[in-house]
């Protein structure tokens, strides 16, 4: 199995305050902590599981800054074989169709059986890149995959997760792009030996020119959409905020629940 796995370095904004920069189209990320996108972490694990069961070879692809090398090394420590990090300011990163074109350009011309991506990036929530990438490559895809079986090396049986936890089972011919949903496996911790070995694996840094991709096809002019404005929405909460020290809050809440007949 020749595989590519596409991963993204994303900020964890679940506990962070988000502020828009004066340019109005970017956010101040100086205080965010970054790591691998949740779903991509599962995609890496799935590629390594497939490699362990079927033999194979995994190339990591990521578009991102130098700081993301730590994340890429971690994926190699878990069993991926080499990596290409694409860094180029000309890419219209807000448009997943442009991102897919860049990833497609990085894969094209090489043989592969599987490309794995996460089904959604937790920063911009498009759920678009993987399926668009399949079309760029002219191959099949299955999105939101919660279980994969490789059949006789020519086909995959993939279980797609639908609303309500129902699964749609499909069989598609290889090569195929799978967009992986969280919970498909249990991502491992990188073994110490793997971490050491990862330092010796190849991590190539490339820009669009190195990959033979025409910047005019993936930049803001090429994108058919414009990121016009970012703003912080007013959160309208009609909640009663209970104040005080933690103990006081707990006591107040307990009496509200009991007096209100809620418990």
């Amino acid at each position, binding site marked *: 199995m020749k595989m590519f796995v596409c991963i993204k370095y994303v900020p964890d904004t679940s506990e962070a305050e988000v502020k828009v920069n004066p340019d109005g189209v970017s956010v101040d990320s100086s205080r965010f902590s970054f790591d691998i996108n949740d779903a991509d972490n599962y995609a890496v694990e799935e590629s390594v599981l497939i490699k362990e069961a079927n033999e194979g070879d995994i190339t990591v692809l990521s578009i991102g800054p130098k700081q993301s090398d730590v994340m890429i090394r971690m994926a190699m420590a878990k069993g991926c074989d080499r990596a290409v990090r694409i860094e180029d300011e000309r890419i219209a990163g807000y448009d997943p169709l442009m991102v897919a074109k860049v990833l497609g350009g990085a894969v094209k011309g090489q043989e592969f059986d599987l490309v794995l991506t996460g089904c959604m990036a937790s920063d911009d929530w498009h759920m678009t890149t993987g399926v668009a990438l399949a079309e760029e490559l002219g191959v099949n895809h299955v999105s939101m995959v919660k279980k994969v079986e490789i059949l006789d090396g020519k086909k995959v049986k993939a279980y797609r997760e639908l609303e*309500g936890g129902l699964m749609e089972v499909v069989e*598609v*011919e290889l090569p195929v792009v799978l967009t992986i949903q969280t919970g498909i496996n249990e991502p491992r911790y990188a073994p110490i030996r793997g971490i050491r070995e990862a330092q010796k694996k190849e991590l190539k840094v490339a820009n669009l020119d190195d990959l033979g991709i025409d910047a005019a096809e993936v930049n803001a002019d090429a994108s058919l959409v414009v990121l016009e404005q970012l703003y912080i929405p007013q959160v309208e909460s009609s909640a009663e905020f209970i104040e005080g020290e933690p103990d006081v809050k*707990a006591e107040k809440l307990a009496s509200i*629940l009991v007096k209100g007949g809620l418990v």
Partner: protein
Amino acid sequence: MGNILVLAEHRQGVLRDVSFEMMAVAPKLADQMGAEVVALLIGSEMDGLAQKMAAYGVKVLVVDDPLFKDFNADKYQKVLSALIDDLKPAVLMTGHTAQGVDFMPALAVEKKLPLVADAVSLEFAGGVLKATRQLYSGKANAVMAFKPAETYLLTFREGTVEAPDASAGGSVEKLDSPLKEDLSYRKFVGYVEAEVGDVDITQSEILVAVGRGLKEDKNLPLIEELAKAIKADIAGSRAATDAGWIPHDRQVGTSGKAVKPKLYIAMGISGAFQHVAGMKGAKTVVAINKDPEAPIFAVADYAIVDDMFKVVPKLTEKLKELKG
């Protein structure tokens, strides 16, 4: 100007809510664009569903053929590709659902058309179509403007608006299927139903739900004790079920269950829309989260901004005391 073509989504013989919700969104956009709303159904034996869509006062186009008995992303893409050429719609809109996301990106690439995914509101002004969408855990909104194109592609988020009341004046028209034979490279095999567990949380009166904020499963006893004190069942966000702390059948949200308890206590849950979609039917919502900006507070009735590990032990103790 072409029409606003809305793909009505259905599964296992039933129209999905998003199909009706788009009947609230599309007419407003149609007014602004000076266009008409046309619904589209792709499937097999669609007469009944077509009538249901027509009840929204729109023309319903139907591609009805046994080849579409089961959903197949590639078949949908082929039909929509042909219909874009034939009908030249100004907008093609689908739900931002497991179906929509499975073919719209590929269709956009194939047709070289712009796509905005997961739109939560739409506006057409000064000749420009704009779609608003969320990012960064729902803490920022982005306004995406489409550059002029023959057809704008959109996936619209489910559960964002209320479905309108039905009106009169709809009609149904059958179209020839552009797909003449089955595909060999992608086959639908079947459905697998979600697992069933020991407790059916859709029937629970009180739910205590935890998310990633639980940090590790060794913190679970704290939650179990609270649940025991108030005879609640325990549920979780996807982060909590993915981590294996909470059984999968107790996941609340779009890909889990929709619950409607009397009381829902959310702890260490940020309130992603996929989660909120599953718990907004709760009568009273208590949210405990250390992030004052957490979106969960927007749907809470009682809110505590604090570390759950500092609040919960005392809460349990006090509840035990008050309830005797």
